[in-house]
């Protein structure tokens, strides 16, 4: 299959490991990515928290560009995914707003493309059975908790993820790699997001709670599909509770025997390689 690819700003910066791992995993799964031409930032939380119209117009520009290609749009960053989905929802359901935004952008909105997250594309279109077939190194001994966070799931009528209180797609994907997904009650809790700069102490408290609960669930690592969550998990947890964090695609790449894992892992703030070595996985 072929999809439009909207990397978003983080994936070209601190979330580079996510971008690179999504690309190699997609290639291995026969998903061809075509980067969306001249995309712009989705505006993230800062736009919708301070200027609603801007928060629809900014992603609106990229959505309209994607409509020309008429392919599903893969958006790996949970924050971008949420903003693109929200903008599309408002453009579809609010005619006055749509007319105004079309006037600003100078082009018509058709509402014709699906904005999708790679988790959903891999789970629904490729399937865990196919993933299982491609695994060359089972991740035996790895016990991840899947951390979905906020922006893949809420609001449910916009995000349309599997189950907004107890999502499972990442858990099933991890199991298909031979890892032992641990069940926990904090899958959908908030990490504090962009408060990480202005109110660091709040993020430390939230992330520490996640780590403590992950440990209580018997996990030895935590996986995510969001560059903001990843940054907070990887850099804000207190030393005595921190667990290594991974993008789910990094672990997929490792299990599928793809190139690049070492160069990603060494860029993590908390180096996951000692854990992987102790399990005989590197």
């Amino acid at each position, binding site marked *: 299959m072929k999809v439009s690819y909207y990397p978003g700003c983080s994936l*070209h910066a*601190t979330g580079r490991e996510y971008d690179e791992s999504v690309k190699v995993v997609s290639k291995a799964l026969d998903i061809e990515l075509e980067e969306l031409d001249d995309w712009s930032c989705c505006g993230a939380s800062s736009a919708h928290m*301070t200027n609603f119209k801007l928060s629809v117009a900014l992603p609106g*520009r990229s959505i309209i560009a994607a409509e020309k290609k008429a392919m599903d749009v893969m958006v790996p960053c949970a924050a971008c995914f949420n903003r693109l989905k929200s903008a599309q929802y408002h453009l579809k359901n609010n005619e006055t707003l749509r007319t105004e935004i079309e006037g600003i952008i100078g082009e018509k909105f058709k509402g014709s493309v699906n904005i999708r997250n790679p988790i959903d594309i891999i789970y629904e279109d490729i399937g865990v059975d196919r993933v299982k077939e491609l695994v060359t190194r089972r991740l035996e001994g790895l016990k991840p908790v899947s951390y979905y966070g*906020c922006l893949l799931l*809420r609001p449910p009528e916009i995000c349309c993820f599997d189950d907004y209180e107890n999502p499972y797609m990442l858990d099933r994907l991890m199991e298909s790699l031979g890892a032992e997904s641990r069940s926990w009650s904090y899958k959908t809790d908030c990490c*504090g997001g*962009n408060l990480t700069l202005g109110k660091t102490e709040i993020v430390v408290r939230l992330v520490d709670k996640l780590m403590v609960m992950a440990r209580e669930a018997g996990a030895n690592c935590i996986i995510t599909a969001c560059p903001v969550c990843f940054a907070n998990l990887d850099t804000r947890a207190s030393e005595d509770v921190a667990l290594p964090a991974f993008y789910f695609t990094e672990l997929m790449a490792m299990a599928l025997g793809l190139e690049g894992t070492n160069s990603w892992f060494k860029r993590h703030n908390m180096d996951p390689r000692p854990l992987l070595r102790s399990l005989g996985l590197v």
Partner: protein
Amino acid sequence: MTTFLKEVNDRIGGVPIQNCYHCRKCTAGCPIAFAMDYNPDAVIKMIQMGRREDVLKSSTIWLCASCETCVTRCPNEVDIARMMDVLREMAIESHVDAKEKNILKFHEAFLSSIKMRGRINEPMMIALYKLKSGDYFSDLGMGMSMFLKGKIKPISPRTKDMKSVRNIFKSTGK
């Protein structure tokens, strides 16, 4: 005369916030409530009572991380997260002193960065935030370690058609 309640409801454009029957499910599930000066359900009541200044000067409206847990669980479908967005917009328009200044400075730095390049360049955005907030020293060690590990890239691609991006800012600015 337009009341504060009507103004907030008009801007939300959905379920009227007075549908809230104060079950406090929003506050119970709010991950940041511990740090807020007023709980989310208290803000709803304060709006009904016309306490405009107290609400717009509260820390709550800035600390809300927009995780949307409240609106997802509200039995009356009151869009509390959208209400917080509306209150922030009103605070900015009324030039009220933001109780959590650095959070507003972060949003300003973030949006200015998009306005300049169409995309966020993280080192540039953080430098801009530090200049605006005066918070020069926190995370310097971490920033340095990330730079040395090659995690931070000083140069990143920008949007080419900046005219269209600038026009979006111009046309949606208030």
